[in-house]
């Protein structure tokens, strides 16, 4: 049991338990807070995978903006402050069955992969510099980067327009 494995198990336990609480709790604000715990676990996982920029951006974007947006939306769309009704719809056994089938299918597919038992290789160079060069270099991913920023602009304008009081 190396330290790396212990950290992975603790982080995976945090992520999966928080995700289960997200989909089963009745209080929606608690669900949003459990989502924050899941996202934080994912950020820890990114940090152990040497993707330091992604870990920090996960915290800034997901926890610092998206989760707060969720909490605002939950607070703005309910009639009384203490909702205690059941939160699952009538078809939840089917949903559980589909989820388990999806998990089994994905695990089976992963077992078919030939490099599923691979270990970590060396990290080439400086990932941060390589990432920043890849995002703006013409023979790498600058087109995807620019299109993503236009998409964010469209989402910004669209969200403001939809939520505006006419």
């Amino acid at each position, binding site marked *: 049991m190396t*330290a790396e494995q212990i950290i992975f198990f603790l982080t995976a336990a945090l992520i999966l338990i928080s995700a289960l609480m997200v989909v089963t709790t009745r209080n929606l*604000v*608690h669900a949003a*807070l459990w989502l*924050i715990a899941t996202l934080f676990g994912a950020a820890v996982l990114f940090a152990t995978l040497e993707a*330091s*920029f992604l870990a*920090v*951006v996960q*915290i*800034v974007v997901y*926890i*610092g*903006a998206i*989760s*707060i947006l969720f*909490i*605002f939306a939950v*607070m703005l769309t309910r009639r009384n*402050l*203490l909702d205690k009704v059941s939160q699952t719809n009538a078809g939840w056994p089917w949903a559980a069955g589909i989820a388990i089938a999806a998990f089994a299918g994905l695990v089976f597919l992963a077992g078919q992969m030939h490099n599923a038992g691979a270990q970590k290789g060396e990290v080439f160079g*400086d990932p*941060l510099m390589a990432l920043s060069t890849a995002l703006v270099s013409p023979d790498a991913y600058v087109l995807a980067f620019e299109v993503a920023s236009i998409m964010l602009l469209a989402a910004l304008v669209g969200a403001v327009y939809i939520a505006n009081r006419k």
Partner: protein
Amino acid sequence: MEFLTDPIKVVYDWLLELFLGWGWADWVAVLVIYLLGIVLFISAVMVLDILLVWVERKVVARFQDRLGPNRVGPFGLFQPFPDIIKLILKEDIIPEGADRVVFNLAPILSLASVIFLWAVVPLASRIYGVDLNVALLYIVAAGAIGTLSIIMAGWASNNKYALLGAYRMVANMISYEIPMVVALLIPTVIVGSMSFVAITEAQSDYWFVLVSPLGALIFLIAAIAELGRSPFDLNEGESEIVSGYHIEYSGMKFGLFYAGELLHAFTFGGFVAALFFGGWHGPWAQEYPLLGAFYFVVKAMIGYWVIMWVKYTVPRIRIDHMLAFNWKFLTPLAFILLMVTALTHRVLLDAPTWLYISGMFLSNVLLAWITVEVLRAQARRKRESVPPVMVGD
């Protein structure tokens, strides 16, 4: 003598020898040393926080032309201790219908998010927590956790005013994150790295405030707004919203919020000092790190004093003015400044130092002058569109 030139390494080696001599395994000794280091660092930061309570009360008193605490100890230096004892002895009230776990977690997260920041601050050339290569973005991330703690506090209090105060505060904080990130990008562009240690070391020849004064100003304004301090403190003004999300907190939980706010202000004073005013640089700071740490604390105190000066001089700004100021003025200005800085830096890349500094400084001055002219033209247009009122018409 080697302790004076590299204190951390000397202490680390001595402790490692001690623990290995006691027969501990290698990784246990290293782990215990790291934990000891963390505990010591946080204790030093919290002791500084206690001192800051005294500094705050004395300075606000002097700004308001009175003396401040002067009974307990010489110059009232021991005043924070009666304050803390009073807060600890107060009754711990949890309002009815409040969410207990979230209610208790919020002040802890609020103080924790400030202590996280101290992990990356370079106190001296060889004294810092960790040299992250994404340190500036880590600072923004720790601020995001602080934002989260505020909305947790507001919601868990089961109180309309607390919720309203929390909404305003969070809208304020996430809006002003954008000019802060862009202002943090300016030293990144100049140095070419997001590492805090690298940025502070790159200021050995000249301070970055000479190269980008407008960037320092934008960072200072955005930092004051992030802190939630006056003039941006509509969310916790006692006369407006009955101290916002703090309302339902009593005793030491309120003490945690208050101490966290003061420490946050001092930390941002330290950031302004480290990013733009040379950090730990000074005479003989390169060889003697402890002297560098002293310079850094002095500069951080000066930055903190500037933040307090702004707080106790300028009146409060209304919430819609606050947000309009951010989105319509500060964010476009920050982006234009970033583009101008990047362009000028690229053009003057190989120029001699004096030409580089004067070129960047002049570009900043030009941008500031153009901004003032645009604002004057707008104000003139607005004045002329309102017809003058004639008396006796």
